[in-house]
């Protein structure tokens, strides 16, 4: 089969401090930096990959810290193809907040069919010793919420990071009506050079 390239907007969503930026950096650059000062100026990272014979470009968007005080809105959310709901296994509050993040995503991304939207859930910081959220508890929530795939990850030691993103891509590609994205017609590209024809007035 021919390989068909497409750009997918993927967002990582969850409480501040659960490791979203670290996951993004681990996956795209295979680096882990505990301080993350270098994410200033980073809006999204791109990664090309091949899944089941198809080549896609993932555009993974950073929250830029706007989630800390719940100030994320449509510039971040709109146009997302997939949402990775992320919590930290050592922080039960971040797990309980997933339900709010899911609600907020559905609202601001204006998702028309929430039941079939491809959510993937990540329980990060698997490397820490003291868990507050058990695997069983998380699996149960994922199953009840919509049968979401669940991955326990560590950005620090790279556990399950790549496989989680790849599953996210599979979920998006498996949607039959994916190509029916509402692309606005007759919009203008502000970057294009003006027309050369002279005009009156």
């Amino acid at each position, binding site marked *: 089969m021919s390989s068909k390239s497409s750009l997918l907007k993927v967002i990582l969503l969850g409480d501040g401090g659960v490791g979203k930026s670290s996951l993004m950096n681990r996956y795209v650059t295979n680096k882990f930096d505990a301080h993350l000062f270098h994410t200033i100026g980073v809006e999204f990272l791109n990664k090309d990959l091949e899944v089941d014979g198809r080549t896609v470009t993932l555009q993974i968007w950073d929250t830029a810290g706007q989630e800390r*005080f719940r100030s994320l809105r449509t510039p971040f959310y709109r146009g997302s193809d997939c949402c990775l709901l992320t919590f930290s296994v050592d922080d039960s509050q971040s797990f309980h907040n997933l339900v709010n993040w899911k609600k907020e995503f559905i609202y601001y991304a204006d998702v028309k069919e929430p039941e079939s939207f491809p959510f993937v859930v990540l329980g990060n910081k698997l490397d820490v010793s003291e868990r507050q959220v058990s695997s069983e508890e998380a699996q149960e929530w994922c199953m009840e919420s919509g049968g979401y795939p669940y991955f326990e990850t560590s950005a620090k030691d790279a556990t399950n990071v790549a496989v989680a993103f790849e599953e996210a891509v599979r979920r998006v590609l498996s949607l039959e009506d994916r190509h029916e994205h509402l692309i606005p017609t007759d919009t203008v590209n502000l970057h294009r050079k003006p027309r050369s024809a002279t005009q009156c007035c």
Partner: protein
Amino acid sequence: MDEEYDVIVLGTGLTECILSGIMSVNGKKVLHMDRNPYYGGESSSITPLEELYKRFGISDSPPESMGRGRDWNVDLIPKFLMANGQLVKMLLYTEVTRYLDFKVVEGSFVYKGGKIYKVPSTETEALASNLMGMFEKRRFRKFLVFVANFDENDPKTFEGVDPKLTTMGEVYKKFDLGQDVIDFTGHALALYRTDDYLEQPCLETINRIKLYSESLARYGKSPYLYPLYGLGELPQGFARLSAIYGGTYMLNKPVDEIVMEGGHVVGVKSEGQVARCKQLICDPSYIPERVHKVGQVVRVICVLSHPIKNTNDANSCQIIIPQNQVNRKSDIYVCMISYAHNVAAQGKYIAIVSTTVETSDPEAEIEPALELLEPIDQKFVAISDMYEPTDDGTESQVFASRSYDATTHFETTCNDIKDIYKRMTGSDFDFENMKRKQNDVFGEDEQ
């Protein structure tokens, strides 16, 4: 909170969000707060429709015919972007364009003798237009060529006109333009709302006519652009820029007090905590004692189920009602957009009438505009005070922005931003200051 910032910004109107973005991109540590749960302040787009009804004190729910509430994004202020204007330059330099899609407004119309006429967008349309007679058209064309060639740095283009001394009235006389052409030029092209400009030196007017022509040439149809999902996307986009460069955002955050010491700002108190800062930017509503009222604007948001008559079924348009057509001092504007811009439910149109208030009965003042829109499904009437700062911020380091005026573009807003920037930094504003500082699609080049 309980931290130290270079700049605290209160209110997430477009002016404040653009300034926040500029300051963050330039390495300032910025805290940006708004008492509302949404971005935009006075320049927001209200969604869902139920919120708009609530905001305007309408106790009924929207009727079924209005469709899904979430499909509505209703602007509180009616404006379009000049395609070659300063706001578009700001969007391009900051790449805030990546969050937004724009459409060209489909037409511009001018009211004359009780009817509306299309403002010509091509030479063919101009020749066919009934706005002026044939001999007038030839003189007008000569005038437009003069304007197009005019370069304030090249005296050879002046044709005896002094850009800093010759009044615009004198320029019109030089080209022997009649009153109809003068009215059209001043109000439909230079977009003046009054006739005060006639006694002013001509350079500003020439530049405004140039801006209109260059904006029109960019895409055709009209000089205006409009963002899908409403104008409220603009402040959100610039806020996102600020956040990417380290700005901290707190919506739903009440401001208890602005803390001053020895006449200058030292911080902001919210919910018992104080964030300290060296400088403060805010919209007028946060600092009523440091602004004064300079007038009022009336804006009436009208929901329609039809395009406006005689606009060739346009999904978007502007109508200018020049002040002397209706015995006023200021022009009345109508800005119309629709479901085609993802701001209304399918088949619905939003027309917003606005003008500077001149009497104690502003709704009666705009009656000629409302008549053009009938039948109207629902009206939302807002009469807003306009404020300006009383203090330039030198001593206090408090920089209040100006309220949004009745113009239907953002040039005055951008001028306010540039002025505040200069007072805050001591340097002239330069669009280069808005450029993103590094390749923030890191990783793309490695594939």
